[in-house]
């Protein structure tokens, strides 16, 4: 039987094929494929880690934003409260100041009134003393006029004495 060449068993060809294939297999199994697969798997792991990290970072960012929002909100509330307080305080102060001022005014008025009273009394007293002095002077003048002659003096003294005696 004469088979075509490619169908004929050939020990030599099988031997070389086996040798070459086994050497290639050993070399590639040791140094070739594991390195490539390892590289890809490391990269895959890295990518998935990066994705997880990115997601985490996003979540964190979102939470931080929410926190910021909250803080801002609180701050606004606080501000409103502070403003309200301040306004209340201001109003209270104004009110107090007004009350104080009016009280002060009242007091000043009272004092002024008292002063005026005193001044008035003083003036009255002075006027009175002046009036008295003037009356005395006038009376003196009058007396002096009336008592210019001795007779008159005597009569007057006598009348006075009479009075005293009485």
């Amino acid at each position, binding site marked *: 039987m004469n088979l*075509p060449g*490619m169908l004929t*068993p050939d020990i030599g*060809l*099988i031997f070389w*094929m086996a040798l070459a294939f086994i050497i290639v297999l050993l070399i590639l199994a040791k140094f070739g494929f*594991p390195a*490539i*697969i390892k590289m*890809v798997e490391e990269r895959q792991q890295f990518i998935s880690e990066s994705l997880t990290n990115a997601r985490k970072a996003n979540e964190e960012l979102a939470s931080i934003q929410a926190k910021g929002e909250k803080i801002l909100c609180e701050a606004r509330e606080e501000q409103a409260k502070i403003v309200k307080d301040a306004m209340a305080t201001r109003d209270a102060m104004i009110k107090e100041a007004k009350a104080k001022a009016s009280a002060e005014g009242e007091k000043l008025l009272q004092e002024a009134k008292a002063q005026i009273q005193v001044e008035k009394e003083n003036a009255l007293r002075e006027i009175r003393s002046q009036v008295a002095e003037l009356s005395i002077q006038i009376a003196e003048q009058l007396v002096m006029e009336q008592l210019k002659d001795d007779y008159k003096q005597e009569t007057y003294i006598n009348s006075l004495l009479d009075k005293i005696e009485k």
Partner: protein
Amino acid sequence: MIHNFLRYVVYSVVAFFSFSSAFASGKQAAEGEIDVKEIVLGHLGDAYEWHFFATENVEGTIPLPCIVRDEETHEWKVFMSSKIHEAMEHGEANYQGFYFNEERNGKIYQQLSDGTSVRPLDFSITKNVSQILLTSLILIVVFLGCARWAKGHNSKEDAPGGFVGMMEALVMYLVNDLIKPCVGEKHYRPFVPYLLTVFFFILVSNLLGLVPGGANVTGNINITFFLAFCTMLAINLSGNKEYWKEIFWPDVPVMLKFYPIAIMPVIEMFGIISKPFALMVRLFANMMAGHAIILSFLAIIFVTCAMGGWMSYVVGGGMTIMSFVMILFMNFLECLVAFVQAYVFTLLSAVFIGLSHPVHEHKA
């Protein structure tokens, strides 16, 4: 622009082929009938030299070393195949007793002193062997190159591009989409190097076989036998208890597996052989057929042109153009087949290996 250029190239090639073949036919016709079968089978078979072309003056042939054992003295002899040709040209019948037996596909035979001729042990670096060595070299260079790239770069900073990236994508495609699902998530790791090596070995061999002058390595039964044998070893040496139980004690009535008709173990044993046998024949037949078709179309050119007379120019020219178109088509198809056959061999190997690790699924 490119379209016009391509058309120009195709026209020139066709014209070149028709004229040269018509010219060649004149010579061939003078020498006699063309033996298509011999041309095709000769190109499909192995050879002791790498033959590219031949004109009347120049032989485009690279002689390859022959390594044979002298069957009388049991000594190993190493010589170039050209030595035998030279001896024959000088009128001698053989070189140190060795000659090419044209009746036995041109293999080296030894003329013994008692007049009989035997096939000596032959470990020659034939055309196929040298292409296997070339394939091995390509694989080692390519993948060690990729591995070197991987070593030289931080996997967290760089991703390969270009050729390394392509090889990486191909390797990972095979690992993730073929080996992992077919062998099974649990056991696939130890088989990855073997299956990848098989795939790339077959792929590179197939593609080199398509290059003009390339040898028909994967279309040789010895090669596919070896590859199928390796897969058989991988299947059976890695088979777990479940696998062997399925073979010797499957879930069938006892009378079918023990007594009186122990047919199931026989069928299962047959399965052990038939799975790798199918692998062997599939790859061999596909690659051989593809080469045979291309060679046959090529032979049509010479057959029609060798008819002689003015007819050879008309019919030969027409057939040349047609054949050229068909050869072009077949070559594109074979590029696809080269990949598909490598893929199928790896896929089926992976599936068979996966079957030898059955998961507990029966007796639900």
